[in-house]
């Protein structure tokens, strides 16, 4: 498996799209930090980039990369290598590359401008978010053979988690505003890793104005530290679950 990771890394690090991703992230981080006098304002602006751009690039890049490496995967399956090692090798390779890009593009500037615990939580939350969407991309890639359909599914997932889900949440709250909704809200938030990433950072930053309803409920219910631990745990489940399902499907897939 280590060898597969090595060859995937060798392949991806020469990829121009990944380089463009690093440049885009660095430009937005440095730009936002320099424009805002206040570091925490810069960080909260950067949070928007984190919640929209990072999931989008992670899921799209991974799906496209998977389909472009289909030949490579086929070649490996004909060799005496376990299918689980092949898929997890490619997964680890893609995940490591996107994480590295994120660490250079956003992690480094955040540490330079805000070396506090908040900055580190910001990076942790972005790293988890990256891996969640890499996992989801693998799931989208193995359930179909067709590249266009795979990318379509990946886009739909992104749309769902970044836009549609919030709409549904709002509708639920509006419709049932007469009832106590705290527990339901916590449950619904757990269904959206993007929201969890946001809550995780905002709980640490302690900006109640930006927390939104779900963040406020988390804060009220768990307090900031337990809330962070909980959202982190649920995000880990969001990483493990899709890739496990993808692995099960891939083991029986006809290539």
């Amino acid at each position: 498996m280590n060898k597969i990771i090595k060859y995937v890394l060798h392949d991806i690090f020469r990829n121009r799209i990944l380089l463009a991703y690093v440049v885009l992230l660095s430009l937005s981080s440095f730009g936002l930090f320099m424009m805002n006098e206040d570091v925490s304002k810069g960080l909260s602006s950067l949070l928007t980039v984190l919640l929209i751009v990072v999931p989008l690039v992670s899921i799209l890049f991974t799906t496209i990369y998977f389909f472009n490496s289909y030949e490579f995967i086929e070649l490996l399956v004909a060799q005496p290598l376990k299918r689980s090692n092949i898929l997890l090798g490619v997964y680890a390779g893609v995940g490591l590359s996107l994480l590295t890009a994120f660490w250079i593009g956003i992690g480094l500037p955040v540490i330079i401008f805000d070396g506090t615990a908040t900055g580190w939580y910001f990076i942790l939350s972005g790293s988890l978010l990256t891996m969640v969407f890499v996992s989801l991309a693998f799931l989208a890639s193995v359930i179909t053979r067709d590249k266009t359909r795979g990318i379509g599914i990946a886009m739909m997932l992104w749309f769902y988690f970044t836009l549609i889900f919030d709409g549904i949440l709002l509708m639920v709250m509006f419709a049932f505003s007469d009832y106590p909704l705290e527990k339901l809200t916590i449950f619904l938030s757990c269904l959206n890793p993007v929201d969890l990433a946001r809550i995780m950072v905002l709980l640490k930053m302690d900006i109640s104005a930006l927390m939104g309803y779900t963040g406020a409920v988390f804060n009220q219910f768990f307090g900031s530290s337990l809330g962070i631990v909980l959202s982190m745990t649920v995000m880990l489940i969001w990483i493990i679950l899709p890739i496990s399902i993808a692995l099960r499907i891939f083991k029986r897939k006809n290539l």
Partner: protein
Amino acid sequence: MIELEGLQKHYGKIQALRGISLNFDPEQVVALVGPNASGKTTLIKCLLGMVIPDGGRILFDKNDIAGDVNYKRRIGYMPQIGRYPDNMRMGYLFGMMKDLGKNRITEHFDEELLATFNLEEMFAKPMRALSGGTRQKVSAALAFMFNPDVIILDEPTAGLDPLASEILKQKIQKERKAGKLILITSHIMSEVEEIADSIAYIVEGEAKFFKRIQDIKSETGEERLGKALFHLLSK
């Protein structure tokens, strides 16, 4: 050496294999022959574990291959269309395959085809820049690389130039004499006649017959294999 027992596979509603049973022994060249879409490639992919059969089983040296990967150490495979990572240079590809297959060989890599096809000259080229024929040469060189006991070649000479296909045929004969089992698929009857010992004829996912070429000829009284097969099938 390889036993197929009632192998079945369907893709959706299409039944690709309908219970094929065949036995392949070492030191021979077996040609899988049959119309397009008769299930030859599916059969090969089942052997390689790339497609998982719905029913029946495959024994490799008496061991069921389901869930196993180690038996693949002893198989070399040349696909019908060799597809490789676009950006990878040819030299790097060979290096990688050797690295991944280090535990597959006891002595040294078989690089004979690499030399006779003059592939080393093109080691700096990325795989996407290669012609179809050159990719076929790469596939062939990789199939023999690990000195495997079983060599599976899916339409090996399609797309190869005359010289290269002659080199490949000679290599096949050489390995056969060394005691290997070689499975090929081909639509070119003159070629099958030249290199194969027996024919497994597959139609619509079933093995119609599995005979020695000599027997087919003497049975039908025809000199040419193509004609003999035509006789046998139109009966």
